[in-house]
């Protein structure tokens, strides 16, 4: 059984699913977006605070309920986002999405994605790709709100 499962549940993912970064409320958020996967019921609210007078992310936090893949993905995102500009986050979101669509083919850019490269194995499980994308899609919607405002 090991191989099929180990490709999906990398240790990094299991660790992030248990000890989650950014899993909390965020007072005074500049943007907030709720996203839901109706097929499995997973849901998440992502909130973002920017550095004053800048488009650089100070904090990204989230609250949600879902499977280990969706929760770990949100945790990795919350680790990655602080310090990035909205454009830099968009670049990473594009890279993450491309990796999730890769069906496991190719070499993801670890410099760009950091721990998020652990999710490459998820791309081979078509029904789980949406789980991994959930928080990233919510964060993208937050960025769109902020871009409209600025």
């Amino acid at each position, binding site marked *: 059984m090991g191989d099929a499962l180990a490709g999906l549940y990398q240790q990094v993912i299991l660790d992030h699913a248990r000890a989650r970064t950014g899993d909390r409320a965020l007072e005074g958020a500049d943007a907030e977006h709720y996203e839901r996967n109706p097929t499995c*019921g997973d849901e998440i609210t992502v909130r973002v605070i920017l550095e004053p007078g800048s488009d650089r992310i100070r904090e990204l936090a989230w609250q949600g309920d879902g*499977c280990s893949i969706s929760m770990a993905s949100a945790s990795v995102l919350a680790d990655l986002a602080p310090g990035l500009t909205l454009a830099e986050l968009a670049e990473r979101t594009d890279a993450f999405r491309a990796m999730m669509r890769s069906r496991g083919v190719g070499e993801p850019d670890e410099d760009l994605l950091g721990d998020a490269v652990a999710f490459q194995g998820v791309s081979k499980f078509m029904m789980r790709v949406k789980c991994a994308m959930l928080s990233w899609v919510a964060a993208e919607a937050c960025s769109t709100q902020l871009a409209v405002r600025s």
Partner: protein
Amino acid sequence: MDVVITTSAALDPTVLRLDFPILDQQVNGYPLAYLDSGATAQRPRSVLDAERTFLETVNSAVHRGAHTLAALSTEAFEDARETVARFIGAAVPEEVVWTSNATDGLNLVAYGVLNASLGRGGADARRFALQPGDEILVTEAEHHANLVPWQEVAASTGAVLRYVPVDDRGVWSLDDARPLITARTRILAFAHVSNVTGLVAPVADLVELAHAQGALVVLDACQSAPHRPLDLTALGVDFAAFSSHKMLGPSGIGVLWGREELLNALPPFRTGGSMISTVTMESSTFLPAPQRFEAGTQPVSQAIGLAEAVRYLERAGMPGVEAHEELLAERLVVGLEAIEGIRVFGPAAGIPRAGLASFDVAGVHAHDVGQYLDAQGIAVRVGHHCAQPLHRRLGVAATTRASTYLYTTDDEVDRLLAGVAEVRGYFGVDSAASSAGRD
């Protein structure tokens, strides 16, 4: 030596399995343990052959055309209706209406009621018309297919949708329903067997209460028609719907059964070709049931396949199927309840239930449970099983469901139990969440 015979109707799944080619395969390096028949059942070779033979020899449009194949097709199509009618205890074959699936059948009734409420169908249909303040009663455990259409009808007519509440295990009883069935109740709609909890509803008692108040009874028979002997006339309900693909038959076809006089009074929901008597540029009159509900080209080869599925079930023997699955259900529930951190919904062990069990694994999301089991070749369903209100009531976003059929073996249930026992260890939550308070 004494020979112990547990049941005279004993059925041997290891023999029946040989008729199901799909079950004989490896998945992820393990023999497939298919425990998702509640979602869709597998088809025996005889069903696949019946459809293929029909398509290779007589396939034609039914109820039209003057040629030999058209006549043979029509005959086979109507024979299929008779076969299904016999299987469910219909008084006459005309009480069997072909639909796309059970959802379609329930919508047919709901929108027929709505059309009657809008004044369609003349004096005959007035018995179905809903007024503001009339009540439609369902249960909190309904599949969305037997809930959402009634929400729509209520919203369009001003009727009030009420529901029988469930307890912490998702179970409800006759006593919970009794006070809600009043003179205002016009429609009582519920599942014969719950697709989430396996609860078997007290149909005859509910029919008696509903009819005493002049209410119509609509039965969702999706999880009962495939798994237990069914005599709808004897049960006394007014309408019942089920799907072919859950009872060894093809997808794309289902059945709505209704009492003949009611079907002939209910305004059609879909109109067009094949269902009319006379059409002018201004208006039309409709054929009697079942044709009045069968507009457009029908799923003919699927009807042939479904009839063969019914004959297969009759040969296996429905009392034996029911007894076999009741034993599997008991094995499943007793086994699951013995595992730490597992919360099983539905009737407690020892109380009869259909061959399925939905459960929560403390600290592990159902999707992860399903994925872990799949890696061992065990197929289960995960999610809300089209019953979001029930899951909300139970305080879980999703559950894992194992469901059985006549081809399910004890060994498959045991493999599931062994797999479930490992899940919390794999995800590292064995001690953390097992004692966490849950509502």
